[in-house]
């Protein structure tokens, strides 16, 4: 009878000699006599050879008595941390989509310590073959309670028998798996008699076949004898499985939708350098830009004005929701577009929730050391009174202020500081939305730069850069680009110098 051939002969899916086993024990398996693991290994090994998949199969050895599964299986192997086989299997199976990954786990490994990884792997429906060895005990560690231990069953950690109210009740994994939509095949079998072993063999072969055919997740729960852990002889352990375990863990097929399951399509990874560049490198749509900027579009422009030789340390501050971060972001983009090193650091941490927002931007031709703008700020852009009052003391005595004059009354400032105002919030309302406030402020910034610092060449370029940065930052909202450019022009027109500071830097 075929069963006995399976049990007695060495299947071709085993190594001819168990060379990974420490000498001198290289002929036989390490399992106790009568242990279900040995029978299961043979069934798996036989299928590996019969289906000719030894070269593309990985057998995962769990932590448990099957930790040495890799001694025997003539295929790839990995022994994983306790319970983590499903996650490792996921990584393996995603790496090589046509590989066959067999996750072989005990009841402690799968149903206790590793159940979270397991159930989410089930939920994702990974293309895997699960063999779940339910022997109602922790075999390897010497017979402690497993999640599948029966109520009343004595183990070394339930010396008076498992108590339903204190220790929980036997965990029925196959039923949980079958209740989920993604798994394709779920069956519970037993290794209690030649007849049942034949059924187990058929189920495991089917699960492996499904995996080969990329049908998704197949799960076979195997009620497996552990005569040592349960302190029973061969007859006693078979009887225990047939008469007690199957009452709680009924045998049979719980789900099989393999016939109608179509293998999922998967993307093909791209490594071609040209395509990788196209996906990651900044792409410039030159034609579109040239049309927009005309002759203003120039690559690698070097702004010659002296101000750009010094590190610009800018604090942008206002009320939360005023667009402080996006204003700072546009300024950071302007600097990047002209090849400055830039750091952009929004207020980080709990202060965010206090109703004020601020952001540090540093632009420099040299390497930027500290990205924090505090006592060394040389420009303050303030959108409301509290932030002006808060950050003015940190501004250098030669610093520059740009502020929204519709909400801020400028206090007395040092004679070498200079301030430019624009009634941004007020003008924005006139333009139809408070969201144009940022561009109005940028107008004031441009006016200040042009009047005080920029060469004629850079004067032309500064507005171009503002436009380019606005276009970049609003790339996903093209409709608001034109009104923002309009606001920028208006801001420049309406901005005014608020003091007669002597010698700003």
């Amino acid at each position, binding site marked *: 009878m075929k069963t006995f051939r399976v049990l007695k002969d060495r299947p071709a899916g085993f190594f001819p000699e168990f060379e990974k086993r420490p000498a001198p024990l290289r002929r036989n398996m390490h399992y106790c006599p009568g242990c279900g693991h040995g029978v299961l290994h043979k069934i798996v090994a036989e299928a590996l050879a019969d289906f000719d998949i030894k070269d593309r199969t990985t057998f995962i050895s769990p932590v448990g008595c099957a930790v040495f599964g890799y001694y025997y299986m003539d295929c790839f192997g*990995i*022994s994983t941390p306790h319970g983590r086989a499903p996650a490792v299997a996921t990584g393996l199976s*995603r790496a090589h989509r046509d590989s066959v990954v067999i996750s072989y786990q005990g009841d402690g490994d799968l149903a206790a310590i590793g159940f979270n990884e397991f159930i989410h792997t089930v939920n994702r429906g990974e293309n895997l073959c699960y063999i779940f060895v339910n022997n109602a005990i922790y075999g390897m560690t010497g017979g402690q309670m497993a999640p599948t231990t029966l109520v009343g069953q004595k183990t070394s950690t339930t010396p008076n028998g498992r108590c339903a109210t204190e220790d929980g009740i036997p965990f029925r994994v196959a039923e949980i798996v079958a209740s989920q939509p993604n798994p394709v095949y779920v069956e519970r079998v037993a290794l209690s008699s030649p007849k049942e072993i034949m059924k187990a063999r058929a189920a495991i072969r089917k699960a492996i076949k499904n995996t080969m055919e990329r049908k998704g997740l197949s799960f076979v729960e195997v009620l497996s004898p552990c005569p040592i852990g349960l302190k029973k002889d061969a007859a006693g352990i078979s009887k225990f499985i047939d008469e007690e375990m199957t009452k709680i863990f009924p045998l049979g097929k719980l789900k099989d939708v393999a016939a109608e399951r179509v293998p999922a399509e998967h993307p093909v990874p791209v490594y071609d350098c040209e395509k990788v*560049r196209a996906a990651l490198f*900044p792409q410039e749509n030159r034609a579109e830009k040239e049309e927009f900027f005309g002759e203003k579009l120039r690559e690698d422009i070097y702004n010659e004005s002296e101000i750009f030789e010094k590190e610009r340390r800018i604090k942008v501050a206002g009320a939360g929701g005023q667009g402080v971060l996006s204003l700072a972001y546009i300024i950071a983009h302007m600097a990047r577009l002209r090849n400055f090193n830039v750091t952009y650091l929004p207020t980080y*941490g709990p202060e965010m929730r206090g109703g004020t927002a601020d952001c540090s931007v540093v632009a420099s031709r040299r390497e930027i*050391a500290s990205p924090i703008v505090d006592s060394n700020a040389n420009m303050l852009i303030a959108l409301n009174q509290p932030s002006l009052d808060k950050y003015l003391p940190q501004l250098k005595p030669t610093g520059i202020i740009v502020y929204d004059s519709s909400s801020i009354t400028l206090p007395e400032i040092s004679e070498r500081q200079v301030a430019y105002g624009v009634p941004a919030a007020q003008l924005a309302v006139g333009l139809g939305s408070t969201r144009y406030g940022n561009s109005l402020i940028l107008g004031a910034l441009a006016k200040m730069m042009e009047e005080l610092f920029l060469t004629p060449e850079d004067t032309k370029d500064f507005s171009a850069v503002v436009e380019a940065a606005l276009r970049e930052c609003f790339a996903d909202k093209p409709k608001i680009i034109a009104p923002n450019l309009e606001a920028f022009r208006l801001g420049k027109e309406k901005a005014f110098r608020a003091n007669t500071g002597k010698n700003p830097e």
Partner: protein
Amino acid sequence: MSSKSLLLCGNEALVYGALLAGCDAYFGYPITPAGEIIECAAKKFPELGRVFIQAESEIGSINMVMGAAAAGQRAMTASSGLGISLMQESVSYLAGMEIPCVIADITRSGPGIGNISVEQSDYFQIVKGGGHGGYRCPVFAPASAQEMCDMAFRAFDMAEKYRTPVYILTDGMIGQMMESVTLPEPIEKSAPAPYSLTPGNARTNHFTSIYLEAEELEKKNEALLAKYREMEANDQDAELWKTDDAEIVLVAYGIMSRLAKNAVDELRERGIKAGLVRPKLLFPFPKNALNALVDRAKKFVCIELSGGQMIEDVKLAIECRRPVELIHRVGGKLISVDELVAGVKAVA
């Protein structure tokens, strides 16, 4: 063709660097301040047909990394302190099984859930091993978005050269701050390692960390130790900033090294000959660079956002031949440049 610069936060730059290094798979679980990594990976990995999974936990992520990396892929994950703690059992397995991969820790403040502000208190955990058993991992310490990109790019080569997990350790500020970044050229993809579980390779390939015989495990562990010595001999890396004539040598990494540079400049303006050693790798620790400065240096000052962790390595490196002072802060606040200057002056 070289790339024009991009404005990226450090966390995004890390993902770009990994993809350009041919990283095949990202597995992760959301946590602040590493969130931009998983979000950027979720977008960019599938765009290139590569594997992305939001795992059920950090335990899930690191073990998915184990599977993909065992299968010969360049695989990575990232998290912050708490999640890194959860991964430790598996990192120990990865080190023991010699499976190369990359793990980023974008630190926050602890212990426990702490807060999401900046601290550097994961140093002991990451640099000294972290999990059980006597293993070490190379640890990169990027201090800018550019380095997040470059070091992620380098980390895979390092991981494969030594067959080891490699860490990228930085703080939430470096992770979340945006900076201009120039991208490196993408690599030409090469075949998975011959030892990996890749169809076509010898099917006797397997990974395990179990060695029942003491003699066998001793051999295995001595080989690991030899590998760590090799890293110490070949891979120390530090930036030296104005150290040539330095009498006061500051030592700082991550965000604090950026502020320390400004402090060095200010101290020099006040006539104190200060310099900075910035470890670019924390393991192997730049002992040689520090030792070379001992003769001229009067004092070393370690600057850390922790109770003083790296300072132990500084003292060991110079074998306490000079006093080593600590300037530190914990709980989520930076040490400002002014505070650094005052602190150094107080001990100089």
